[in-house]
C-alpha cells in the first residue's frame, strides 16, 4: 500500500480524474472530499463489505427447493388494508 502524508486542504490525484481532498481534521475524525467521474462509484467500505457478507451468507446455505415453494409470505400491505378498512 502506498502511504502519503497530507495536511488539511491538500489533496491526492488518482489517475488524472479522481481527486481526494482532506477537507478537515477534528481529532480522530477526518472529512474527505472526493471528486471523481460519475461512473466511478464511491461507498463507505463498511457498506460494500456488508453487501459482500450478505451475498456470501445467501450463497452458502443449502436450501431445499420444495421447502421454499411452500413458504407463505406476510406481505407488507398494511397501509392499503387500513385505508380500505375505514
Amino acid at each position, binding site marked *: 500500500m502506498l502511504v502519503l502524508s497530507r495536511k488539511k486542504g491538500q489533496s491526492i490525484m488518482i489517475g488524472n480524474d479522481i481527486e481526494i481532498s482532506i477537507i478537515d481534521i477534528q481529532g480522530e475524525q477526518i472529512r474527505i472530499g472526493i471528486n471523481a467521474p*460519475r*461512473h466511478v*462509484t464511491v*461507498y463507505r467500505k463498511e*457498506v*460494500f463489505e*456488508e*453487501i*459482500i*457478507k*450478505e*451475498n*456470501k*451468507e*445467501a*450463497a452458502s*446455505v*443449502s*436450501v*431445499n*427447493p420444495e*421447502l*421454499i*415453494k411452500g*413458504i407463505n*409470505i*406476510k*406481505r*407488507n*400491505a*398494511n*397501509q*392499503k388494508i387500513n385505508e380500505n378498512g375505514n
Partner: protein
Amino acid sequence: MQLNTKHFGVIDVDEKETLYFPSGIPGFENVKKYVLLGKQEAESPFFWLQSIDKPDLAFVVTDPFYIKEDYYVDVDDEEIEEIQITDPENVLTLAIVTIPENIQHMTVNLKAPVLINMKNNMGKQVIMKDDTFPVKYYIMTGGSEPPR
C-alpha cells in the same frame, strides 16, 4: 445447453437465457454468467439465480415489489450504464434472499437489488446510497426481526 445446478441436478437451458453480469456480484466478482430458474412456478414468488460456470453457486431471489408494496429502486443513471438500461420498463428487479436454519428468520436484501436489463440480458447488483431499505428485511414478519 446442459447445465449442472445446485438444487435441480442437470437441466437443459436455452443458451439465449444466459444473463451476463459484467462486474459479477459483490463477493463473487469472477462469476459473470447466470440463469434465472423457477419462473414457470407461477405460485411461488421465489426464483433461483444459478451460476452457469459454478454449479455450486445459486442465490434464492424474489420480487421485492411483492415482498414490500412501497418498494422502489433509486440509483444513479451512471451506475446502471454498465448494463445499458435506457428504459425502466425493460428492467427486471430481483432481491437476494438469505435463508438461515430457522426459516422464520429469512431475510431479503432490499438495499442492494439485482437489476436485469431484459433487452440485452445484462445484470448488476446495485447498492442504494440511502438507508430507506435494509440489507436484512425480515420477510416472515413484514420487516422487523422476529423474536429469537
